Structures are given as structure tokens and as C-alpha cells.
């Protein structure tokens, strides 16, 4: 299961102005990866000490992240349209 790699945000105003943003999420994951590698064992130990199930919790968060792909939100109001799509 892969985390989302790209997201787009589209804003269209009724007066014709448009803005389209491409957010390359894969760059964020690349930057975050070293920090995650260092932090994950610490988080796992802290959760274990607290009596939680570290692997189940980390797996559940990963599943949420991996399932984000395909999310589509479109808000069409009186003055503008805002749409977001996660790839």
C-alpha cells in the first residue's frame, strides 16, 4: 500500500480567475523518510512502555495514509469552486 504521491488543488472564481496547484507529495515523503526512520523505533518503544500495541498502531496509521489515494473533494459555492484530488 503506497501513500499518496501527488495532490492537486484547483480554485476557480466566478470572475474567471483560476489557480491550479500541483503538490508533489512524494517529495515530502522523501524528506520525511530519514526523520521517520529515526523516530519510528522511539515511538514504538514509547507506545510499548505505555502499554499500547505499537505495531498495530503504526500499521493502522500506515493503512490510513495508504488509503488516501483517490480522495476527491469539490466545493462549489456562490463565488468560487475549490476542488482537491489526491492521487
Amino acid at each position, binding site marked *: 500500500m503506497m501513500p499518496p504521491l501527488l495532490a492537486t488543488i484547483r480554485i476557480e472564481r466566478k470572475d474567471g480567475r483560476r489557480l491550479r496547484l500541483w503538490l508533489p507529495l512524494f517529495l515530502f515523503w522523501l524528506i520525511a523518510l530519514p526523520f521517520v526512520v529515526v523516530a519510528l523505533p522511539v515511538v514504538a518503544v514509547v507506545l510499548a512502555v505505555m502499554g*499500547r*500495541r505499537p505495531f498495530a498502531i503504526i500499521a493502522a496509521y500506515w*493503512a*490510513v495514509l495508504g488509503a488516501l489515494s*483517490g480522495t*476527491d473533494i469539490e466545493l*462549489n459555492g456562490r463565488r468560487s469552486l475549490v476542488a482537491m484530488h489526491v492521487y
Partner: protein
Amino acid sequence: MSENRKQILAMLAEGRINADEAERLLAALDGSAPPAAKALAAGAPKYLRVLMEADDKHGGEVRSKINIRVPLQLLRAGVKLASLLPPEAREQMNAALHDKGVGLDINQIKPENLDELIANLKDVSIDITGKKNRHATIRVFCE
């Protein structure tokens, strides 16, 4: 009749397993799943769509529209994550929901209940008439 099926029936006849266990074993042999999972597999919906159309509060002809598509996998993952929340956090969430007038118990939301809900959620449409006779229509369906 297959060899495995014969063995299960023989075990049942010998009293080594009871009828429920035999049924479960036979179902596993057939690759059968619970009815909700079966229904899901048949239609295989992937997304939950929420559409809302509401009268504009300024009274114009243009209606506000909200169109949200959420992967069902995300809902399942969310429910699984919610089940891992510590009991005290769930109690706080329940209390907060109760304060807002929502009679929902977080402890009752389980993955199997969600599958059943999805299997039965073909198309739900809700019409709301609010203050100043403003109308809103909400449609929820799986696709």
C-alpha cells in the same frame, strides 16, 4: 463430494465437532465469506460518495454544491485506527459527541459493522428544510 468435505462430515458424525464448527469449516472450504463481504465482492464498490446541494443563503439561483468521494479503504482504515484508541480517549469522544447532541457510541463502530453498512448502502437521499425555507439535499451512496 470432495475428500475434505467427507472428513468434516465424518468428524461431525463422530461428535468431534459440533454443527456450528462443521458449518464454519464447510464455508471455509467453499471459500464462502459472511453475507456482507459476499455482497461487497459482488458489487465491489470502491468509494463512498457524498453529494450535497443546498440553497444559497443569499437567495440567488446558484446552489451550493459539495461533492466528496472517499475511498472505502480509508473508512475501513479509520475504523481500525479508532478501535486502537485507548478506552479513556474513546470515552472522551463519546462524551463530546453526546454534548453536541450526537447519540453515537464510538465503541460500536467496528470493521464488520462498516462492511454491513456499505453492503446495504445503495443510495440514501435526505431532504432537509432549514430556516427561512432553505432546502438541502444530501445523497450518500457507494460506487
